[in-house]
């Protein structure tokens, strides 16, 4: 019988915290949550840790996330896939290139100018030779990743090229923009801090 983690009604990051704890002691875990963001966060956390993930939609808006520990061989395969899928030596050797967008403007002095500069930067990032593997948007940077943003089409193109886009959920919530996030995945501080700490290098415009 799987260990049941009841994370219904809990907000980010509680479901991930409870899951993390359960995975330490069990090899077969069912996590119950009641919202899509929690599903994504728990899924991502467990998949990154090398667990097999399966989500079933239960009645009444409840999701059951079934997590099963993979045997060593499967875990090893996953590891080698990760290395072979890194598409250049730089990523494989030193971790992904991470672009952090900490504000909806670029630089200090004039927000009017900074807005233009940031739009210009994001547009240019589409075709950069050494472009990002991951882009993280936090604080007012999340305003760039929502419906109505002037750079939404650029960000969709960047995402279409395989770049992972993480949008800070706390920040989207603070600006009441959670429902309007239109690109990337709504993420949490665990993923953001983890991505930053593993980065080969970080670019902050």
């Amino acid at each position: 019988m799987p260990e049941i983690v009841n994370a219904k009604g809990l907000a980010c990051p509680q479901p991930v915290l409870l899951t993390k704890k359960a995975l330490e002691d069990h090899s077969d875990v069912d996590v119950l949550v009641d919202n899509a963001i929690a599903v994504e966060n728990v899924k991502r956390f467990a998949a990154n840790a090398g667990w097999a993930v399966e989500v079933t939609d239960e009645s009444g808006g409840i999701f059951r996330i079934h997590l099963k520990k993979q045997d060593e061989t499967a875990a090893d395969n996953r590891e080698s896939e990760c290395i072979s899928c890194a598409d250049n030596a730089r990523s494989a050797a030193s971790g992904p290139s991470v672009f952090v967008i900490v504000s909806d403007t670029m630089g200090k002095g004039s927000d009017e100018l900074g807005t233009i500069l940031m739009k210009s930067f994001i547009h240019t990032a589409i075709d950069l030779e050494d472009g990002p593997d991951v882009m993280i948007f936090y604080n007012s940077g999340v305003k760039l990743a929502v419906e109505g943003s002037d750079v939404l089409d650029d960000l969709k193109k960047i995402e279409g090229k395989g770049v992972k886009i993480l949008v800070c959920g706390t920040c989207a919530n603070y600006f009441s923009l959670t429902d309007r996030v239109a690109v990337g995945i709504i993420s949490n501080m665990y993923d953001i801090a983890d991505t930053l700490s593993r980065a080969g290098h970080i670019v902050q415009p």
Partner: protein
Amino acid sequence: MTETSEKYLVAIFQSVSHVISAERILKNARVPHKVIPVPRKISSDCGVCIRFLPEHREIVENTLREKDESFDIRAL
């Protein structure tokens, strides 16, 4: 957005302030456009310009001329 870059035109202005002001005018008039860095083949200056589709050329020109903005239009 499936258009290739050859299909676009850009309006080049004398200064960044003119670009900001032109962008505001085009936004208010709901004319489709996009602020992008001036392409390297046009100028090596560190500038921004306004990109638009050829079918919007007339409305871009008319809207900006009404407000006395001066600019050049080039193919991208």
